[in-house]
């Protein structure tokens, strides 16, 4: 029997999903485990696969539309089944009287960059006046229609409450644009990832009392160890990066100072029994933090391989939510961009994050002799509810010791 199918909840924290691609067309057979569509959630592009054999009778949501879980997106059923009774309640909800032919809305062409974008007349007028490309705006109205509030969200128009009688306002606006003729900002719609980053970082900065501890550490020993290891690995065509080594350093330091490997909750401090390091990976439109599990128990090569694989998946947006959640400590490295030092924002519910700066050559006085040493700046951001200054300092000291005599990593 035909039934309306809502957007499945593809991860536990999913609040909305963007239907980036329908893998099936209307009328296609669907076999068990067939890919039905790809859905971009707050964390990754997820695959929606079939649990049962069925036929895709109708697509209700165009590609590119963002909807909440359980919003009707398709009708499944037997081939040739009459679905008109299902269509009308889904699609004519916006008509108090006789509904228009229901097919219209569902058959809207997918939102191609050049195709027609559903938008209300007033939005079209605003877009004309302000030179906004509506393809870049995400619609929240029925069928993805762009309505005024979507434009307001882009801060391209005064909020509804301030609407002056528009005859006057309109004239003012055109005068302004004629006299100054400066291009309006281009609206880049928020991706799910961007929304998530914004939400989580505001949450972190508002709720987590950050404090920061910095120290320069000498990395000559670590770098020469790396050089030796990479020489050994050269014939296998593998490599260990400085960052891979620092992941291992962080993990070992956490084992020595477990109080930093903890999370704050309202009732208790959760002392983590595993050491899972989140590694910040930059992407063109944001960043993700895939997790290296049990980093304290893994060899450098294993860590190197894993990070390389996770980063590749991240760039293809193929990371699964479980690969990006549940870390206990984060590492963020901007050294390769020439940043000497920076303070990172804690990734809740983790209790701390370390920011790694660039390797610098510095003059150092050793045994009354002036020589050149290489060092880098570590900055530890701590959640003061969990980690006190002394504990943070202790961790930093442990990290320094491990970096400066890296043979300890073998112990």
């Amino acid at each position: 029997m035909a039934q309306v199918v809502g957007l499945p909840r593809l991860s536990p924290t999913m609040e909305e999903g963007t239907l980036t691609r329908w893998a099936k067309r209307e009328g296609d057979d669907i076999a068990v485990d067939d890919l039905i569509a790809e859905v971009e959630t707050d964390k990754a592009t997820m695959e929606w696969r079939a649990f049962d054999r069925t036929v895709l009778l109708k697509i209700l949501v165009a590609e590119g539309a963002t909807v909440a879980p359980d919003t009707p997106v398709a009708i499944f059923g037997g081939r040739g089944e009459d679905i008109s009774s299902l269509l009308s309640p889904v699609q004519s909800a916006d008509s108090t009287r006789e509904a228009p032919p229901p097919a219209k809305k569902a058959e809207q062409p997918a939102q191609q960059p050049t195709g027609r974008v559903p938008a209300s007349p007033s939005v079209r007028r605003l877009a004309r006046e302000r030179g906004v490309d509506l393809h870049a705006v995400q619609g929240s109205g029925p069928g993805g229609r762009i309505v005024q509030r979507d434009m307001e969200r882009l801060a391209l128009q005064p909020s509804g409450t301030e609407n002056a009688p528009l005859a006057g306002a309109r004239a003012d606006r055109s005068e302004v644009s004629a006299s100054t003729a400066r291009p309006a900002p281009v609206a880049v719609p928020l991706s799910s990832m961007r929304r998530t980053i914004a939400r989580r970082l505001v949450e972190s900065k508002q709720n987590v009392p950050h404090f920061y501890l910095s120290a320069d550490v000498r990395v000559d020993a670590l770098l020469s160890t790396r050089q030796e290891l990479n020489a050994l690995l050269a014939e296998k065509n593998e490599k260990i990066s400085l960052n891979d080594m620092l992941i291992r350093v962080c993990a070992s330091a956490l084992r020595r100072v477990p109080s930093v490997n903890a999370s704050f909750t309202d009732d208790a401090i959760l002392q983590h029994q595993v050491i899972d390091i989140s590694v910040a990976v930059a992407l063109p439109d944001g960043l993700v933090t895939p997790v290296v599990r049990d980093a304290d128990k893994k060899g450098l090569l294993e860590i190197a391989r894993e990070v390389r694989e996770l980063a590749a998946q991240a760039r293809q947006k193929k990371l699964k939510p479980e690969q990006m959640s549940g870390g206990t400590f984060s590492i963020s490295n901007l050294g390769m961009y020439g940043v000497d030092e920076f303070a990172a924002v804690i990734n809740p519910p983790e209790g701390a994050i370390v920011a790694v700066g660039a390797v610098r050559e510095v003059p150092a006085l050793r045994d009354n002799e002036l020589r050149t040493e290489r060092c880098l700046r570590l900055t530890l951001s701590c959640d003061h509810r969990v980690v006190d200054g002394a504990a943070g300092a202790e961790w930093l000291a442990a990290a320094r010791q491990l970096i400066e005599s890296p043979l300890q990593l073998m112990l």
Partner: protein
Amino acid sequence: MSEEMERDDRVFVIGEEVGYYQGAYKVTQGLLERFGERRVVDAPIAEAGFAGLAVGAAMVGLRPIVEFMTWNFSLVAFDQIVNNAAKMHQMSAGQLRVPVVFRGPNASARQVAAQHSHAVEPFYCNVPGLRVVYPSTPRDAKGLLKTAIRDDSPVVFLEGETLYGLQGDVPEPEADELIPFGSAKLVREGHHVTVVSFGRPMPMLTKLADELEREGISLELIDARSLRPLDTATIVASVKKTNRCVVVHEHWPYGGPGAEIVDCVQREAFDYLDAPILRASNLDVPMPYALELENEVIVGPERVRAALRQVLYLD
């Protein structure tokens, strides 16, 4: 009416029970005593007859006011109103004028069934040559009635049957306040959505606007009050401000002044609309007798709310 009868002795009232019974709804109470049988005329139960008589009287210089006991009964006088009152001016090449006012209670009076619950505004609004007004407050009723009586064209003057009990201040006779046709009234300023209505739903909408204000939704409420001619400028200006429009009317949904308002808004405010213009109206069935069913058919606050939520994209 009495003020106008005082002012102009060509004005007279004719209808069923308007004299000795003092009016079926007591609208003509005291008039017989004051103006006598020549100017307050009890007619037989024959609407076509006395409506025709009034049209003829108007053509030769009097200014009759025809009271229909209810507008339902005007349907037997439809020919007189549509073919004679409305057409004579044009067909006589301007030689004849028909300054007659047809008035009486309109729309459902609660539990009087399908034949006695007509909302006649769509019928008469469709006739060029007629003017149609539908006040919703005592003050508007007085001002518009005075204008209607002094107007040289035939006027269909609709009174909400259930609005007869409504009390409100009206100007003193000396004020002689006339409300011109074709002027809508901005009842309440708001910024989220324009609600246009007329006649009986108005008190319900005023109450609803109060409720919605508390819920954070601000209605701009317009009483069209003159349906033909229609004050499109006031309505369009408001929709340009709010970008949304819901039309509420008690007549049936197919066509009529409600649809006319939608048409004018979509034409003149097209580039300002953020949502389709919706209507909330009676359901499209003959009025049932049973109270529960009647309540279901007549437009009420829930149907208006649903339309408002939709144009505000709140669902």
